[in-house]
């Protein structure tokens, strides 16, 4: 398989995710670079939050984008936008890593010095602004939740725990945990609905 000879993007106009995915199907590695520049930061942030180890997070992020490159044909743009697909794939990979790590009982923290500062690349300012607005919305909502409710949602999302596992970890009644998570997700849904309308 050869890398395609690619045409440069028209100046001043950023390609959509769908257009980039089309070009990835034509084996245009530049399109993958563009998607990495667009989503590399939020995906890395998510994976690092779950995996807690910069070196492992780096491997997982590379794996996620390689998977995007290899399995571009499995992504159908008609099913919805790329961002949630990418976030879901990254979360699943990171949670798989976390579960394997837990099974092996050998948690090891990397030193903070592994996090290297690098230049912020911003090829999609509008997309970034929109995401940044949503990020503020989500963080504000999480901050507004009572500590225990926020913790329950974080355990579910970032640590992949089930209702029963969260109840066991927090020592709360199963019904209470279910109610917290259901209530929190409902508020998130309403908040994002208001933001997009």
């Amino acid at each position, binding site marked *: *398989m050869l*890398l395609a000879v690619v045409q440069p993007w028209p100046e001043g106009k950023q390609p959509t995710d769908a257009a980039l995915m089309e070009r990835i199907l034509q*084996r245009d*590695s530049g399109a*993958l*670079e563009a998607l*990495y*520049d667009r989503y*590399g*930061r*939020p995906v*890395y*942030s*998510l994976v*690092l*939050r*779950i995996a807690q180890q*910069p070196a492992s997070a*780096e491997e997982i*992020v*590379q*794996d996620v984008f*390689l998977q995007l*490159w290899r399995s571009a044909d499995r992504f159908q743009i008609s*099913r*919805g936008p790329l*961002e*949630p697909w990418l*976030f*879901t794939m*990254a*979360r699943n990979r990171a949670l*798989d890593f976390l*579960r394997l790590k837990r099974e092996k009982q050998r948690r090891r923290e990397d030193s903070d010095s592994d*996090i*290297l*500062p*690098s*230049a*912020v690349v911003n090829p999609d300012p509008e997309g970034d602004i929109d*995401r940044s607005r*949503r*990020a503020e919305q*989500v*963080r504000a909502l999480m901050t507004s939740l009572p500590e225990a409710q926020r913790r329950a949602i974080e355990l*579910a999302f970032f640590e992949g*725990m*089930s*209702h029963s596992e*969260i109840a066991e970890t927090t020592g709360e009644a199963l*019904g209470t945990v*279910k*109610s917290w*998570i*259901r*209530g929190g*997700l409902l508020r*998130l*849904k309403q908040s*994002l609905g208001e933001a997009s309308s």
Partner: protein
Amino acid sequence: MTCEQLNPLYEEYALGVLEGAERAELEAHLARACDKCVPGVAHARWVVSQLALAAPEAQPPGALRGKLMDAVKSSAENARPVASFEKLKSPRTSPLFPVWAWAAAAALALITGYAMHRMNNQYDQMAELRKEMKLAIAQNQALQNQIEMERMVNSVMMSPDSKPLKLMPVDKNMPMVHAYLHPHMGVAITADQMPSMRSARTLQLWFVPKSGKPMSVAIFRPDPMGQIALVAPVNMPQNEIAALAVTEEPAGGSPQPTSAIAWMAQVN
């Protein structure tokens, strides 16, 4: 369960916390391409994916972009057709690397590529199997719990020491709730044709003592078929119980009743 009953569960399903019968019900709707649940879950997946934005912002190492593109190029070159292999056969006056070194490097790259491919496949398969196993365990556990609960309900109902009680509904349109009070085995509650409840609400059973405050006995909800079958321990002497009462409370229950009595039976 109907799509309307499943609707409040979409986000929990997308989050991966939904377990047991509710998860199985929703997956059955998805499996038959339900025109309400499929788009509902798709939207819920988007909502839940946005929690990713709550992660503290971190900048990926600058070298990662280069590593990724090297890996992409390497995977593309590994898959390159062998058309240019003829060039390797042409004599070189002073080759930088001998042919055997190129062949060894190519073999090594192929083996590495194959091993990585297999590892990725196994990784995916393992994740999928783990997911299926978790679901099967949860379903099995839910079924076992249900069988055990039914066995306990039958034991209390059939015991000659049990005192049968009828909890009459305040709302005449609601079905009657049956209770069987046993001095040692506890109190069994059964009902049929109960209406479905909002997810944020639950039913709570109380012992009303001859003097003092009501004592919480159990919180429960009708199953998807509208049935109730449960056994709860008797946590006060039977001769001190004046009545049994059921109220509707916020999910998770309340320390004391917060709404009017919905069902009641006099005991002593």
